[in-house]
């Protein structure tokens, strides 16, 4: 209890955010995107989530810097997926706060609002729209107001077309442009999904186990892709594959039992005795 209160206070002073203004401005702030002028894009402070008495997250505090590529590792049940769920609004924490930049309170928004504010999430299982073509998948994912009425008579503009082609290029799917997404290989589906996130130009990308089930060439290509994104976007990657983490990560956070066990470069983390005990020393 005391720890939680202390944590909250230390968190507050650290981030030094202005107090929340009235909810009226909420929509404008979502529209404007996050204010990351202090160099931090995501603040998770003291987040606790319990399911039927089981604490999936236990006073988790985590900060992600702008343009950073962060890897989150941890054994099963460490709370990685729950953390993603909290950030994207799928799960509401019991306590704690989650801020996107200085001004956007994630806990006050629902899933589509969070997506619109600039947080994209890639699921573990590739979930592309199998009956749509690669091009249509990207078109569907494009940022913008997505109301029924506009979409009923909307045509793809030249600017949008160019944007789609550009993303196709980035994820190397130009040749499969008109193929049905269901006919893509596993790795291609994963890239398509990353492309669907990129086209929304998110500030923060959450990527859940991107290389599970990929061939070595695909893994290599994915590593290239993710590292090329860092800088332009902040990226959080949850991954089990240590080789892969080593190949991309500058900074690694180890989760254990719902909290942060260690944080640092991959070498520091691998040298940490506690980490070796719970995770690596298997």
């Amino acid at each position, binding site marked *: 209890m005391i720890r939680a209160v202390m944590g909250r206070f230390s968190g507050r002073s650290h981030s030094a955010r202005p107090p929340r203004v009235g909810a009226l401005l909420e929509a404008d702030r979502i529209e404007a995107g996050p204010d990351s002028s202090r160099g931090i894009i995501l603040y998770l402070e003291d987040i606790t989530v319990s399911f039927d008495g089981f604490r999936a997250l236990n006073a988790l505090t985590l900060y992600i810097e702008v343009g950073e590529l962060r890897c989150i590792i941890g054994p099963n049940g460490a709370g990685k997926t729950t953390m993603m769920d909290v950030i994207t609004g799928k799960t509401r924490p019991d306590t704690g706060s989650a801020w996107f930049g200085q001004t956007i309170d994630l806990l006050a928004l629902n899933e589509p609002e969070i*997506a619109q504010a600039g947080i994209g999430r890639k*699921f573990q299982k590739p979930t592309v*729209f199998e009956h*749509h073509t690669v091009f249509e998948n990207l*078109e*569907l994912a494009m940022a913008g107001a997505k109301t*029924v009425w506009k*979409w009923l008579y*909307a045509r793809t503009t030249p600017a949008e077309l160019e944007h789609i082609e550009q993303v196709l290029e980035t994820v190397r799917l130009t040749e*499969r442009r008109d193929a049905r997404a269901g006919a893509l290989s596993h790795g291609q589906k994963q890239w398509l999904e990353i492309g669907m996130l990129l086209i929304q130009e998110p500030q923060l990308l959450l990527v859940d186990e991107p290389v599970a089930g990929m061939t070595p060439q695909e893994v290599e290509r994915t590593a290239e892709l993710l590292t090329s994104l860092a800088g332009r976007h902040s990226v959080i990657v949850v991954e089990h594959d240590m080789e892969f983490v080593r190949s991309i990560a500058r900074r690694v956070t180890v989760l254990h039992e719902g909290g942060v066990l260690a944080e640092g470069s991959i070498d520091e983390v691998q040298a940490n005795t506690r980490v070796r005990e719970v995770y690596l020393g298997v």
Partner: protein
Amino acid sequence: MQADRGGRIFLVVLLATAVLAPVFNLLVPEASALHLSGYTVTLLAKYMTYAMLAIAVDLIWGYCGILSLGHGAFFALGGYAMGMYLMRQIGTRGVYGDPVLPDFMVFLNWKELPWFWYGFNHFAFAALMIVLVPGLLALVFGFLAFRSRVSGVYLSIITQALTYALMLAFFRNDMGFGGNNGFTDFKDILGFGLQAPRTRTVLFLCTVVALGGSYLLCRYIVASRAGRVIAAVRDAESRARFIGYRVESYKLWVFVFSAILAGIAGALYVPQIGIINPGEFSPANSIEIVIWVAIGGRGTLYGAVVGAVLVNYAKTYFTAALPSAWLYALGALFVLVPLFLPRGVVGAVHQLSSKQVRPTPRQVPQE
């Protein structure tokens, strides 16, 4: 591409029907073998209203994944709204000759017209209600269901409950909708006698236009960007939500639109068939619509038309030739079609023709 070809064939057949049926009915003398009886024209019109209803169901089921087992309710509500107008048109020609009250109200000893019957003496008001009543019911029902994220089989069950509840309500005499007899004995519409061949031809043509129009509108919707979103909601709802679409409002919009189409179909059905009663709300009717769509092939729109016409033609034939066999035949179709024709008649035809044209399946990966 394929969808477009099937759709074009459908539109050509529809146009041909629109021209030929009235010609063979009105211009060819009755003695001729080519003469089309008024009964047949009405039957065609009935199939077309059913086809329109099937398109409405295909739009939400085939494209948005909402399996409504209560769409007959919207059809019936549209039909009732039209029926109320036709009842008011009877005027003093009814059995009791009351200028204002329909016969069944006089029979029930009612002294004045209930408030919800006001305005139905004007066709424009009735036309508005034909659109508004099914639309509003769908709006309220859909808003509550989709907002609570009721989907899949649970949604099917509550739509079924909705139509069942309405059936029970409309069976009650004190509801003011004619109880189990419903409305019948209509005399005229906009001053034209309903039995006159010309009136019937005009109604027939209106039905053709409504069916063709619904098809084209639905085609436009599914081919638009909104249509691609709707299909995306069907295939991966939570993904669509994460991308930033308000899945609920898309579902609600399609559901309401589909209910309005169903209502208009019902309104065209009633003056041509000449009766509307609470039986139209029966859950079995709504299930039958889904069977039409499944048999025709869902997710194509024209497949729904094919299914509706085929099944209803079979029904007309069976109920005349072997009345007791019809329900068994329908049940057998419902079991056999998903087993052997998972994509319906249209899907099977497509498969056969594409096998002849292209021996190699398209699914072979390119690398």
